[in-house]
């Protein structure tokens, strides 16, 4: 998983990632016996916040809010489906936007589980 490299504080104009970005650090370090915990917020920030914004409220007429969304209120499997396959996978409702959220199938299972937990915990009604 690549995290974005902030341009803040750099004196030169940002170049492409291969030209100047340092290698991103791994998501977590861990004791050898345990699997590393995936930071759901980090996954959200790196993959989702660009469009849905850090506060999950989306962008009017562009990206719908996650806060208060029907997908969020439904079974977590529905949310997982949207993340993996994009909004086109939701064939049982008309898309109000007229275009689709792309698929994020490149995320690993642990990343998706952590992301679902983060999104439901942070933007869900039960928060």
């Amino acid at each position, binding site marked *: 998983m690549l995290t*974005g490299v902030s341009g803040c504080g750099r004196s030169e104009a940002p*170049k492409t990632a291969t030209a100047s970005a340092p290698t991103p650090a791994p998501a977590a370090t861990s004791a050898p016996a345990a699997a590393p915990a995936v930071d759901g917020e980090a996954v959200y920030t790196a993959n989702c916040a660009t469009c849905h914004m850090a506060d999950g409220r989306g962008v009017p007429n562009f990206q719908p809010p996650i806060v208060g969304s029907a997908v969020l209120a439904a079974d977590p499997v529905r949310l997982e489906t949207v993340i993996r396959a994009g909004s086109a996978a939701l064939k049982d409702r008309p898309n109000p936007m*007229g275009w689709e959220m792309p698929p994020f199938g490149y995320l690993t299972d642990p990343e998706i589980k952590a992301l679902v937990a983060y999104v439901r915990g942070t933007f869900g009604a039960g928060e």
Partner: protein
Amino acid sequence: MFPKSLLSVLLSAALTAGPLAAVAALTPDPENGGISLPAGFGAVVVADGINGVRGLASAPNGDVYGRLSGGGIVALRDTDGDGKADVTERFATDLPGGSGIAVHGGYVYFSTANEVYRVARAAGELTPTGKPELVATDLGDRRQHNAKMFTFDSDGMLYVEVGSPSNSLGEPDRARGAKGVSDARVNEFLSEFGGVWKFDPSKAPQAKADAEHWSTGHRHMLGLAWHPVSGALFGAQNGRDVLNVVDPSIFNQAYNAVRVSEEFHELKKGSNLGWPYTFYDPIDNVRLLSPEYGGDGQKTPEAGRFQDPIIGFPAHWAPMQMAYYGGDQFPETYRGGMFQAFHGSWNRQGDQKGYNVVFIPFDADGHPTGEWSVFAEGFMGKGQIASPNDAAYRPMGVAVSPDGSVLIGADQGGRVWRVFYTAE
């Protein structure tokens, strides 16, 4: 030499209705209604509570029209000369909403996502009493980028921009690893989207298929204005988004935030702006291939295939309505130039930019000098915002009043300002 009665009529008209008298009667609102302007300028709030006010237009008698995204047109009239609307009416509310609007040749022209209509307006009417009639039809609506902005040339021909319902014509669009489509499919797509079509209102109603295909290779241009001195059409485009989502191995977040300009072009017959194949980097001033079409941050298209912009505005600022300044109220440096509203970004993660109105100077021959400057700002309402939702106002409409004042409208925030020169 003049008959006494004619002289007194002329004097009376000059004193009560002349542009100088009108502006002299205006007092700027406290803090100019929440925006900052260059020295010597002030603003009054014409109206508030007009959420979704998109394109603006002014009639010869000073009436202001605002196209509403939610449906209809708002009509504003200042009857006591303080700059603020005293009468507010709405019409055409039974038709779908839209963005484009103009007062031209005795009509109010306005667009939906698929048509341009016009309604006859007799001099002095606030709500036109004519019935809406179709002028341009079958423009194409697939929801995405469907706002249809338009402008007229000096012969009364109507130029309508049809945006591309896509980010970068990749599959899946905006996905990591999105791939471009074949040249044949690009051409098929661009045969109906992503360009300007020139209509002849005397042939109304005219379908897009029967109009003249003027320019191509557009993503979505909402800024569109004719310069009467050079006889040329100018446009400002919303450039592609999410480079770093599509190929993070090459384009990082910082790169995406600044290296995809909002391109400002002269649109000639046959102009090809290079979308979807390319984007324009305003820092290195180079047109680059998009990752969907083989781009790697270095590869450029075949030389001369696509035109370069005259100005590369900062990434993701989101240009909206553009207006030619033909007035003489503002100082000499502004005359003959263009004002360009910027909605403000969403795709500059965590630190959004734009949310202003820019001035683009043109020379005496009607050609852009290549410079530009921020004219009105402060619309964000704060020093820094992480999301468009946090902005107080997002400028969309800009128009010039017959007295040379500049009108600015914000669809988010629902406010219309009148900016005038106080010379103080």
